[in-house]
């Protein structure tokens, strides 16, 4: 089998461009997902079942249906209501954020509920409100525990951003498919794209391990 490196060099500028979009979209998805996820987690832990209900429904819908379906509905159904023509990168960011938020919410909830209930009792017995106790006592401890599962979620999100190629969002996978289509070749573009994703996820793994270690030594625990 001849391996045509010239295809890779030809397309490298596009791959790099796609890489930037992939990184940007993933970062935006992670950040929005974190904020939204924390909000949903707190909502789902409300003592009022009617407050809990919409958050439960949200999580069930976004975890229970394929991201690809969600992206298609968002891009061709929902975003066009607000902008025309709809921008695939924006649709991708929205879809990834909403989807990640559901998973991140469950990660946060598990982290918060893993904190000994004596912590909340001690905080409340000192006169703190529920919100103060959450902010000052529970969340800082929970945050450290959710780093490993959050790392997993970030990796999943980075890889799933490749579904953006279906919407023609010019991210990494999109350019891989473009190269494959132009040259009618499989190995060169897809292996290159896979390799770039692998480098990204491995870097992310090391980064998360580093953060985890830093946080655990900070507290001398």
């Amino acid at each position, binding site marked *: 089998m001849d391996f045509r490196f010239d295809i890779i060099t030809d397309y490298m500028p596009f791959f790099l461009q796609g890489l930037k979009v992939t990184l940007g979209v993933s970062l935006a998805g992670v950040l929005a997902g974190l904020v939204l996820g924390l909000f949903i987690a707190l909502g789902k832990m409300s003592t009022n079942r009617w407050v809990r209900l919409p958050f439960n429904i949200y999580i069930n819908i976004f975890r229970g249906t394929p991201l690809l379906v969600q992206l298609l509905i968002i891009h061709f159904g929902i975003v066009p209501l607000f902008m025309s023509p709809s921008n695939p990168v924006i649709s991708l960011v929205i879809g990834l954020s909403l989807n990640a938020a559901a998973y991140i919410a469950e990660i946060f909830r598990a982290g918060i509920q893993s904190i000994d209930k*004596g912590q909340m*009792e001690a*905080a409340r*017995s*000192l*006169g703190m409100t529920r919100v*103060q106790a959450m902010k000052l006592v529970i969340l800082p*401890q929970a945050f450290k525990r959710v780093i490993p599962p959050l790392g997993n979620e970030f990796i999943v999100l980075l890889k799933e951003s490749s579904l953006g190629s279906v919407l023609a969002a010019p991210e990494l996978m999109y350019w891989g498919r473009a190269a494959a289509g132009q040259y009618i070749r499989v190995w060169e573009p897809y292996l290159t794209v896979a390799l770039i994703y692998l480098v990204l996820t491995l870097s992310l793994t090391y980064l998360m391990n580093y953060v985890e270690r830093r946080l655990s030594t900070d*507290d001398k625990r």
Partner: protein
Amino acid sequence: MISVKNLKKSFGDNEVLKDISLDVSPQEVVVVIGPSGSGKSTFIRCLNMLETIDSGHVIIDGKDLTDKKTNINEVRTDVGMVFQHFNLFPHKTILENITLAPINVRGVKKAEAEEKARVLLAKVGLAEKASAYPDSLSGGQKQRVAIARALAMEPKVMLFDEPTSALDPEMVGEVLEVMKQLAKDGMTMIVVTHEMGFAREVGDRVIFMDNGYVVEQNEPKALFDAPQHERTKAFLSKVL
């Protein structure tokens, strides 16, 4: 100071507190004893609403906790609580553990709160541990910090829920010593404990609870030496 009237509390079908009434005067040290499952921990937890109250009234310093208009957070600032398992905040230093609530709840300035915390730490004999983290402390040290943390809010009453039950035997003494000093300083205290020596020596009044009732209460000497009820006698014969 504290007035409990016809307090009742159930967990599901299990009625844990069946009509408890009790008055505690300022500066009084009341020790609650009884077999496990008698409801004594639930009782003391009702006094700052860590457990909801099904019926009856708990009035602390003139404020009825069961009244919906009462701000429970405000009442709690006046009621210090010490737990069996310390419940120190592991992500904060000892000093931060003590200053956290005064700064954020009382609005005390940081420098002032820290100065006060150091005084309290010296009082419980742990001045040198200010910048340590809880996990580096022994059980007895943790519990003394927990007492200092509660005192930092300048409470009018201190509640102790089996403060020495989770400690190794050799550390019980150091915690009881701090509590004795506190009683001597005139703090109003309610103490749930199995330390009969402490009850006898420090208590102004001992309350024997069993099966959700206050069975008997008296001065320590009278209760320990001449219990009136069969159940009190049976319990004391096992623990003394």
